[in-house]
């Protein structure tokens, strides 16, 4: 229950960016997730962004080992995990050093002073104590001896030092919950669930959380607390969901809707692994998840499963997509439906495994031998991963073709408030299953509107046939090396993917339908682009935005949109892949580009600045 004896005044805020930062063993991801739960319970809209190193436990106390979790929560609609933090929790000097640049100049910074000792400064690369050299002037620094007080809080429980200190993240969480007038109840319930078998640990965490909360209430450094009212969201039932879980669930939904068995062949790779884990967790829905020996076996098992009539998919990241190229070609040639999910990360090669990027677009569009077009779609938010996975499945089976679904590390690990849909309202999926003993069946006869062939599933009487990677004779599907046949089949495969444009929605424009400046983006940058554009619109600027989810084929009205603007600025987290794709498709227009390749998302502020400079150029 809320403590009504609060002495500090409460300040109302629209939205807040909160960042937890600590050593990668300090439990910052969990702390962040628990705060997210409390934000959900309070009815806020929110988005989160975990930012952690590739090493499981990088050297303790170093900048390389800092793990962060950012949450942006609000009374207003939240589309991004936020630029700069209003509140930073820094569990050690290294985390302060690593994250201060992502913190607002007036921010509240909560530090564990017990870690601010010579050894800590040295490891973090500080010459002296940053808490005492005036470098934090202007910030509201809350100095808390978190380690010491944590040990004290559990003194009576007779835990050894190491175990006791494990819950110091909960002390920090307690401080933050006080700061935002949140209840402890939900978090305590979590401890009871999580450590059911270990009541001492439940008690320890509860005591430490309460100790943090009480500490905050009593110290002078906290002169006011904050309240963020519930967001005004559409009526419905909500939950918190990460992009990877949403992706996995989208496929489960598509399997149920289509009546097909779900099959995933996948090899663990950051940041896509959670999709595989999530599907292995839900065997009760009949999904078969096969952890293959490598990326190639992941997709090839999926092709085998697709041949037998399963809704088949494979999940990976950029390096894995490279390994799957040849097999995607096989799926193109055999015209079997599969969905390939690429959770993009920083590249090339191993690149930045835990950081996000949009640099696999060329690979998705062009990275195969021969003329091998596939459908490419890109999820635009963590929540949209659910709908994109569903739609990728629908397009794959109805059009009998591989589909590449691009998400990215930020969407995958980031979480959002998700309005739970009802399955009855999801679109119907109709796989073109061939009928037993159909005397007219031939493997490569096509339907008129989609040019898709029929799906003849082993076990079905009267439809025995062979398919494979060699070129097919039009209609019969027999092996053919005939030159004209190859030309025809190449054109058919191209046209088949082109016609998908008749089955996807038209591209929407936010802002005016025509004007001076159109900003263009695609995939995971939707939230940040929208926030920046909405801000400019609210400030009275004239600017329009087109954010693409359907990449190949592009929506039919794409050129209609482009031609109505004098300047087109394409913003993406790569070196200019989508802009070049547009230049190739629609060369008549004047494109400018804005690119960032740092393994980090765009910040709203940098987009705003760029947009304003373009608007000013246009005027002058």
């Amino acid at each position, binding site marked *: 229950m809320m403590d009504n004896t609060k002495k500090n005044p409460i300040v109302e805020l629209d939205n807040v960016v909160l960042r937890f930062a600590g050593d990668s063993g300090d439990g910052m991801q969990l702390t962040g997730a628990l705060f997210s739960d409390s934000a959900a319970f309070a009815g806020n809209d929110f988005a989160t962004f975990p930012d952690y190193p590739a090493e499981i436990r990088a050297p303790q106390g170093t900048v390389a080992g800092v793990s962060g979790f950012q949450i942006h929560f609000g009374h207003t609609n939240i589309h991004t995990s936020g630029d700069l933090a209003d509140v930073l929790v820094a569990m050690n000097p290294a985390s302060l050093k690593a994250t201060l640049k992502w913190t607002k100049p007036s921010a509240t910074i909560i530090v564990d002073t017990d870690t601010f000792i010579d050894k800590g400064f040295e490891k973090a690369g500080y010459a002296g104590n940053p808490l005492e050299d005036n470098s934090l002037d202007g910030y509201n620094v809350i100095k808390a001896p978190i380690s010491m007080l944590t040990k004290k809080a559990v003194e009576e429980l007779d835990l050894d030092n190491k175990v006791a200190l494990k819950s110091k993240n909960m002390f920090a969480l307690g401080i933050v919950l006080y700061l935002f007038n949140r209840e402890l109840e939900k978090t305590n319930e979590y401890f009871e669930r999580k450590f059911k078998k270990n009541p001492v640990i439940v008690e320890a965490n509860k005591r430490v959380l309460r100790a943090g909360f009480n500490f905050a209430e009593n110290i002078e450094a906290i002169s006011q607390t904050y309240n963020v009212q519930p967001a005004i969201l559409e009526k419905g039932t909500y939950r918190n969901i990460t992009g990877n879980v949403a992706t996995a669930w989208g496929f489960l939904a598509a399997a149920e809707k289509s009546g097909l068995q779900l099959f995933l062949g996948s090899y663990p790779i950051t940041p896509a692994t959670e999709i595989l884990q999530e599907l292995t967790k839900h065997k009760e829905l009949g999904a078969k998840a096969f952890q293959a020996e490598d990326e190639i076996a992941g997709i090839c098992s999926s092709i085998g499963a697709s041949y*037998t009539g399963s809704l088949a998919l494979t999940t990976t990241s950029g390096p894995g997509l490279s390994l799957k190229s040849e097999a995607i070609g096989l799926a193109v040639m055999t015209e079997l439906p599969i969905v390939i999910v690429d959770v993009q990360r920083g590249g090339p090669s191993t690149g930045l495994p835990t950081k996000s990027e949009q640099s696999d677009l060329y690979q998705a569009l062009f990275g195969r031998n021969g003329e091998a077009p596939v459908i490419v779609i890109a999820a635009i938010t963590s929540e949209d991963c659910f709908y994109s996975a569903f739609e990728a499945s629908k397009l794959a089976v109805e059009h009998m073709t591989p589909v590449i679904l691009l998400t990215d590390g930020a969407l995958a690990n980031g979480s959002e408030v998700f309005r739970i849909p009802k399955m009855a309202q999801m679109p119907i999926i109709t796989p073109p299953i061939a009928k037993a003993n159909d005397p007219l069946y031939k493997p490569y006869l096509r339907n008129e509107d989609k040019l898709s062939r029929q799906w003849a599933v082993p076990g079905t009487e009267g439809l025995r046939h062979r398919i494979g990677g060699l070129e097919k004779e039009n209609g019969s599907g027999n092996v053919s090396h005939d030159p004209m046949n190859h030309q025809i089949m190449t054109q058919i495969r191209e046209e088949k993917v082109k016609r998908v444009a008749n089955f996807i929605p038209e591209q929407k424009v936010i802002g005016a339908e025509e004007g001076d400046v159109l900003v263009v983006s695609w995939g995971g940058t939707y939230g940040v682009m929208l926030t920046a554009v909405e801000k400019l619109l609210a400030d009275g600027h004239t600017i329009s935005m087109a954010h693409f989810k359907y990449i190949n084929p592009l929506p039919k009205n794409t050129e209609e949109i482009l031609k109505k603007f004098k300047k087109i600025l394409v913003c993406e987290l790569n070196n200019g892949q989508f802009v070049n794709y547009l230049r190739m498709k629609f060369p008549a227009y004047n494109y400018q580009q804005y690119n960032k390749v740092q393994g980090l998302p765009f910040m709203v502020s940098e987009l705003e600045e760029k947009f304003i400079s373009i608007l000013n150029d246009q005027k002058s």
Partner: protein
Amino acid sequence: MTEDQHIDIQNIPQLTREDFVSDQMVKWCPGCGDHAILKSMEKVFPQMGVRKEDFVVVSGIGCSSRFPYYMNTYGIHGIHGRAAAIASGVKIANPNLSVWMITGDGDSMAIGGNHFIHVVRRNIDISILLFNNKIYGLTKGQYSPTTPKGSITKTSPQGSFEEPFNPGELIIGAQGKFFARVVDTNPKMMTDILVESAKHKGTSVVEILQNCVIFNNKVHNLVTAKETKDDNQLILEAGKPMIYGAENNKGIVLKGTRLETVVIGENGITEADLLVHDPANPDPGIHVMLSKMQVPEFPMALGIIRAVKTDTYEDLMTKSISFAKQNSPIKCVDDLLMSGSTWEI
């Protein structure tokens, strides 16, 4: 889709060779060992008690991998080395299908080595025919991973430097539970062994010593030629002593930690001294030694060398899915979406 389909074996019409002959022109070289294997398979399939629609033949790339086009079944001609992965997907997705994989020493010992060892390790119920001609035929005569060291080929003009794989050793090392070896010159035995291999629940591998008439002619000649075969073939049968030879008087004994050849009647050796074949022994020790025997020091072991029963991957997966279905409160995607922590607005 057909997971719950139960097939009434009684009602499967009697199938014949004609049910499986495809209308495609067979394009292997005249005299190639593959023709004999195809003929044999056309005899095997009608004997299996499986509906003709339930066979799926999967291959990779290579001469052997053209096989699916020549059988009138469902089939996939895949990409190089990946047949094992494709076949795994077929079988796991629909365990009711009778899945056959046709591959060669290049396809499965080189480019597809990884998939090959893992399908064997997982014990997915797939019948694998490994055509071993010890050469790359389709690319016209380069050495393969089973080519004997020192062999002169297009890419080893001074003789190859590489130690070859012995498929049996590799399969058993990969936790293989069924391994048999046959020659393409004995179609009767090949047919019988293929039927046995298909009846075995789990991954079965039959190595077929197959002759490439163009690029490696007579590579298996010591084992297969009329004049020498009886002295160079040990045909294994479960529960029978290991006897071979033109005069049926040679045998295999275990001496210390290794096998030796003996002659019955010499040095006081009787039939009772010979090793008795036990393919079902889970301990692979003798099976590995039998697989490794090479002419001329030893006869080549043929027949079923190892056949050990254990759970298949797909059975364990099916069980774990049924268990989850019975025990989870989540029965549909709506339940899933509403599971865990949710809130109303």
